[in-house]
C-alpha cells in the first residue's frame, strides 16, 4: 500500500488548510451567542471532523486495509459504553 | 456441626421472604448443575481412564450437544434474571420506597452510626430532632426509610437479619427502605472497609412492638444533632 502511495501522495497541504480553517471556525463558533447545547453539539461535530481528517490522511487510515481500520477503531465502542453507562448516574 | 449449613439464618424483615426464596431457587438449580457436572466429571475420569487396549472415541465435537447445553444454560439464567429483576425493583427500584415509610436520617462517620429521628413534629431540621448513637429503635411492621449520608468515607449499612445492605457514599444522599417483621434485638454492621476501626463499627437495632416504640419515643428528649 505504501508502495502504491510512493508515486502520488495525498494532498497533505490541502488537508492542512482544511484543518486550519476548521480551527478558525471553531474559535468563532465558541463565542457565538447561541444556546449552550447547540454550541456543544456544533463544536464536538467540528472536533470529530478534524480528528477524522487527521486519522484518515495523516495516519493513512484511508489507504489501509479494512483489517487495520477495524483494529484502529476497536476500542471506541468500549469507551462509549463506559462513559454513557456512568453518565446515567447523573442523567436519568 | 450445626454451622455447616446451606440454610440462611432466620430473617426478620419483609425482604427475607423474597430474598430467601430466590436464594433457595438458585441453590437448588446450581446444586443440580453442581451434582451433574461433578458426578459426570468423576464418572468420566473413572470410566475412561487409560487401560491397555482402550481406543479413544475420535471426535471433534457435536453441534447438537453444543446447542443443547448452550440453550439450557441461557434459558435458566434468563429465568433467574427475570425473577431477580422483579424483586430488585421492589427493594431498590427508583420508586420502591413506600409512601408511608418512616424516615430516619443516618449520619455515618468513622466509626459510628448516628440515627437522627425527626421528633414529634415528624420533620427534620427542627429543634425537637433527636439523635441516638449506635442505637436504632424501630417499630415492628412499619416501613422505614433510612437516608444515608456519610461524612468521610464509604460505609455500608448492613443488617443481616433484615437482608438489607446499602452503601453510604459521601457526597450522595441515598435512601434505602425495609420493614422489620419480628420484634427483638439485631445487629447492624459496616460492610465496606472504612478504615482501621471498620470491624467495630457496630450498632444495635431494637425492634419494638408499636406500644413499646411509642413509650420509647416519649422518653426521648430532643438533642442537637451531635457532631
Amino acid at each position, binding site marked *: 500500500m505504501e508502495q502504491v502511495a*510512493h508515486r502520488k501522495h495525498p494532498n497533505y497541504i490541502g488537508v492542512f488548510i482544511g484543518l486550519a480553517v476548521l480551527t478558525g471556525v471553531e474559535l468563532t463558533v465558541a463565542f457565538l451567542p447561541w444556546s449552550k447545547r447547540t454550541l456543544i453539539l456544533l463544536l464536538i461535530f467540528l*472536533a470529530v471532523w478534524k480528528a477524522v481528517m487527521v486519522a484518515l*490522511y495523516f*495516519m493513512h487510515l484511508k489507504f489501509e486495509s479494512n483489517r487495520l481500520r477495524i483494529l484502529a477503531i476497536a476500542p471506541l465502542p*468500549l*469507551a462509549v459504553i*463506559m462513559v454513557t453507562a456512568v453518565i446515567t448516574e447523573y442523567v436519568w | 456441626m450445626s454451622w455447616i449449613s446451606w440454610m440462611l439464618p432466620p430473617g426478620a424483615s419483609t425482604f427475607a421472604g423474597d430474598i430467601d426464596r430466590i436464594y433457595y431457587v438458585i441453590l437448588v438449580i446450581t446444586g443440580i448443575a453442581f451434582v451433574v457436572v461433578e458426578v459426570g466429571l468423576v464418572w468420566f475420569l473413572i470410566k475412561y481412564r487409560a487401560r491397555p487396549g482402550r481406543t479413544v472415541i475420535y471426535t471433534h465435537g457435536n453441534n447438537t450437544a453444543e446447542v443443547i447445553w448452550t440453550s439450557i444454560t441461557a434459558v435458566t439464567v434468563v429465568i433467574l434474571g427475570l425473577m431477580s429483576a422483579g424483586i430488585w425493583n421492589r427493594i431498590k427500584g427508583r420508586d420502591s420506597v413506600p409512601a408511608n415509610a418512616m424516615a430516619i436520617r443516618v449520619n455515618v462517620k468513622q466509626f459510628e452510626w448516628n440515627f437522627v429521628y425527626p421528633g414529634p413534629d415528624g420533620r427534620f431540621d427542627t429543634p425537637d430532632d433527636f439523635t441516638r448513637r449506635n442505637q436504632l429503635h424501630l417499630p415492628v411492621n412499619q416501613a422505614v426509610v433510612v437516608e444515608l449520608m456519610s461524612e468521610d468515607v464509604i460505609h455500608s449499612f448492613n443488617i443481616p437479619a433484615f437482608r438489607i445492605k446499602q452503601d453510604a457514599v459521601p457526597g450522595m444522599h441515598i435512601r434505602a427502605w425495609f420493614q422489620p417483621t419480628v420484634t427483638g434485638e439485631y445487629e447492624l454492621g459496616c460492610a465496606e472497609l472504612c478504615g482501621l476501626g471498620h470491624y467495630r463499627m457496630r450498632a444495635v437495632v431494637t425492634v419494638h412492638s408499636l406500644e413499646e416504640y411509642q413509650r420509647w419515643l416519649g422518653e426521648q428528649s430532643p438533642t442537637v444533632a451531635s457532631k
Partner: protein
Amino acid sequence: MAHAMTHASVMEPSPEAEPGAGVYNEKLGMWIFLLSEIMFFTALIGSYIILRFAHPEAWAAPGKVLNIPVTAVNTFLLICSSVSMVKAYASIADGNQKMLRLWLVLTVLMGATFVGIQAYEYYHLIEKAFVPSAGLYGSTFYTMTGFHGFHVTMGVICMSFVTWKAFRGRYTAADHRGVEVIGLYWHFVDLVWIILFTIVYLI
C-alpha cells in the same frame, strides 16, 4: 531481529508467516499501542465528561480563566507539526533525504515550542491561583492537558532520536519504518489535542 533481515521488503509483512494484519511488525505494534492510548485518554476524558455532567456549575465560561488566544496559537502549531511530520514521511518515501531532515527538524522544533508555550500557560494560570487543587475545573484541566503535554514531550524525545538517525542516513525509500511509526504516534497526539482543545477550552 534476525527475522526482519530475511524479509524481501522490510516495509511489508514477512512472507515467512501466515498473513496477519498486512502491515509490518513495527507499524502493527504502534497501532496496537495507540489502542491502549485511546483507552488511557478515555479514562481521563471520560472522567472529565462524567464529572462535568455531575457538576456543570464548577466550570467557568470559555475564555474566562483559560487563555484561548495563546492556546489557539498552540493548536495551530501542533497542526503545523503534524503536516510537517507527514511531509517528512512523504519525502523519505520518495527517497529525498534532505527534505526528510528539514521536515523532521521543523517538527521537533514545533513540538518543543508547543511544550514551551504550555509551560508558559501553566505558569500564568498558577500565578492567577488557578491550580490543580482549584476544584474540579483545575483538577481535570491540569490532569488532561498535563498528560497530553507529557505525551508531546515523549514524542519530541523520540522524534529527536529519529531525526538524529535521519541525519546519519539511516532511512531510505525502501526502509523508513522509524519515520512512519513515530509519525503515527505524533498524529495521534495531535488528534487527542484536537479533542482536548474543544472540550477543555471551547466548551
